[in-house]
């Protein structure tokens, strides 16, 4: 058995002691230490490798994992919702793709949008409103009110004079009348509106409503329900 590793005190300085430490010796203690260091190096490498492999979860603790899991659950739920929606859309498209149903549907929609946009002539039940203006006191704002009221009451197609009302219709006071979309209208102003006649009449006739306001401005108003109103004026584009 070798004697204990004791370095002489004068050697305990600087690099010499380091060199002394690195000098190969073969004592049982050295071998045990070497063995432990083999284990340590092995463990370090194993741990580093496994951390590289799976850095997110290997070191995560239970509560962190629970948080991650619930996040994932929420996300997958959201994605599943998206999936359902997309599948429904796809099914609809597949159904539409079979035969002429899709074309019919598209035509129907084109007609509806054309009527709403004012690019197609229209015909149907509705009302006719004629506002005569003997005093010349009707202004653009009155016509705008009337148009808005008709729209609110559910009029789908409206014609003022020979102007088809659209989303961009505007009224401007002008000499000798009122300009609608740049076209001069003169009294009497005639509204043709297609929609439920009863509802339209009620809406226009309410106290303080359009008819009263027009009358208050000195106009004479004639409102009549029609089983068939024909709107021929169209807007271009």
């Amino acid at each position, binding site marked *: 058995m070798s004697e204990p590793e004791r370095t002489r005190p004068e050697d305990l300085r600087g690099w010499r002691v380091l060199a002394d430490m690195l000098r190969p010796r073969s004592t049982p203690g050295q071998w045990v*230490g070497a063995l432990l260091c083999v284990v340590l190096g092995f463990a370090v*490498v194993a741990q580093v490798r496994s951390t590289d492999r799976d850095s997110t979860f290997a070191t995560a603790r239970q509560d962190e994992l629970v948080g991650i899991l619930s996040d994932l659950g929420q996300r997958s739920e959201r994605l599943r919702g998206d999936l359902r929606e997309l599948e429904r859309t796809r099914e609809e498209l597949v159904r539409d793709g079979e035969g002429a149903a899709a074309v019919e549907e598209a035509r129907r929609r084109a007609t509806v949008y054309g009527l709403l946009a004012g690019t197609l002539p229209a015909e149907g039940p509705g009302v006719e409103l004629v506002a005569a203006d003997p005093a010349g006191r009707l202004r653009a704002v009155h016509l705008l009110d009337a148009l808005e009221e008709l729209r609110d009451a559910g009029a789908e197609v409206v014609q003022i004079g020979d102007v088809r009302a659209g989303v961009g219709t505007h009224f401007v006071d002008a000499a000798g009348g009122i300009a609608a979309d740049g076209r001069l209208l003169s009294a009497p102003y005639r509204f043709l509106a297609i929609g439920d006649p009863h509802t339209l009449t009620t809406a226009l006739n309410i106290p303080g409503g359009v008819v009263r306001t027009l009358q208050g401005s000195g106009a004479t108003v004639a409102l009549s329900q029609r089983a068939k109103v024909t709107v021929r004026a169209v807007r271009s584009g």
Partner: protein
Amino acid sequence: MIVLLGLLAGIALGLLLDPAVPLWLQPYLPIAIVAALDAVFGGVRARLEGVFDEKVFVVSFLSNAVIAALIVFLGDQLGVGSQLSTGVVVVLGIRIFSNAAAIRRRVFGA
């Protein structure tokens, strides 16, 4: 010298075998490694100061690693595993730094 070679041999062995850490060991291995590193630094320091003792080194190496792992295990059972392992790492880190400082003073005299 042999110890240093052992460390290198262990690293080489790990690189060659590419071991997978078993699941039950995964929470405790990092802490045990830090504890063992603390023991290694303590051993180097003792060696430089001329008071190195193999028996002390071996026992401190093993007991450090086991106790560190045990503390983390206990923390996991108590539901404070992450906090406790942080605490263990901090304490061991402080010890490693103080050992490294002592080694530095020995080697560089500063």
